[in-house]
């Protein structure tokens, strides 16, 4: 069900990511004031943006699950948030490397997008423990959906509050959206953003297919085992266990 278009997506993501990296290192000029360090920007910001979109997408799937009760939406929401968490770790680490390179210390409080991203990451890090702490699959899926919707609504609010708090004290060094960038830089940025987004969707479909396969296999195993009643219960896990 999920594997449709996976092959073409993976090819597209390879082309786009490699293309983006090539553009970053061979085409985009060095930044006027930041120099070579600015290259991290092409990696850090797409990671952050795609991770955030993944979190919000998790919330949207959560809404669909509550409306339709179809457990595949719960699976989509789980996988979307699961991958976004991994990308968020990447965004935070590259962010702190960038801070170290351009401002001299590993964490800087006056870069609002970085700060609010950390808060969003702290919140979503509770997703797995929350799911793991609930046994009944039905209740686990519903509670996780409510959490994903609440956290999804939280993301914009959090950015608003942090941005207001920071800009009050200290003008921003570089606007993360890259509005003011010259042509070549903007093109490179857009290609890397597109590459990251396509890669996200590919990984998302990839994990969905893998999870669905293992679920089907377990169901098959249970049906076979039922016949000579050697039924083996599934171990507890944060991930959804059935469709």
């Amino acid at each position, binding site marked *: 069900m999920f594997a449709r278009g996976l092959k073409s997506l993976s090819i597209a993501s390879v082309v786009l990511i490699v293309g983006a*990296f090539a553009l970053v290192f061979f085409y985009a000029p060095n930044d006027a004031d930041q*120099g*070579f*360090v600015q*290259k*991290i920007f092409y*990696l*850090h910001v797409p*990671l952050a943006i795609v991770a955030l979109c993944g979190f919000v997408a998790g919330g949207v799937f959560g809404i669909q699950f509550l409306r339709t009760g179809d457990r595949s939406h719960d699976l989509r929401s789980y996988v979307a948030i699961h*991958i976004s968490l*991994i*990308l968020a*770790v*990447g965004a935070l*680490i*590259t962010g702190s*490397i*960038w801070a*170290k*390179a*351009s401002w001299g210390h590993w964490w800087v409080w006056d870069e609002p997008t970085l700060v609010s991203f950390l808060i969003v990451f702290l919140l979503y890090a509770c997703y797995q423990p929350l799911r793991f702490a609930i046994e009944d699959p039905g209740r686990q899926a519903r509670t996780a959906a409510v959490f994903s919707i609440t956290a999804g609504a939280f993301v914009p609010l959090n950015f608003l509050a942090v941005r207001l708090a920071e800009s009050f004290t200290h003008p921003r060094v570089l606007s993360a959206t890259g509005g003011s960038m010259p042509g070549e830089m903007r093109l490179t940025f857009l290609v890397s953003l597109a590459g990251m987004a396509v890669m996200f969707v590919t*990984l998302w479909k*990839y*994990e969905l297919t*893998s*999870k669905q*396969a*293992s679920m089907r*296999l*377990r169901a*098959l*195993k249970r049906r*076979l*085992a039922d*016949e*000579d009643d050697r039924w083996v219960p599934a171990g507890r896990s944060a991930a959804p266990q059935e469709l």
Partner: protein
Amino acid sequence: MPALPLDDAGPYVAAAYLVFLALILIYVAIMASKLVRIARDLDEVAELIERRDETRSGAADESAEQPVPR
């Protein structure tokens, strides 16, 4: 100093991209472990089917004349 003509900030940029690479490889490792589990389940299913066929064929010998409703 590194062979590539990177200016002083070079190591940081390299580090960032290496981190990205490391993340992707970690993810591949996670999916690999899942694949191993799927393969193991598949073997179990295959083995279950063989055992079931043996019991079926075993039972079929005694009641050879009666067709097995499968």
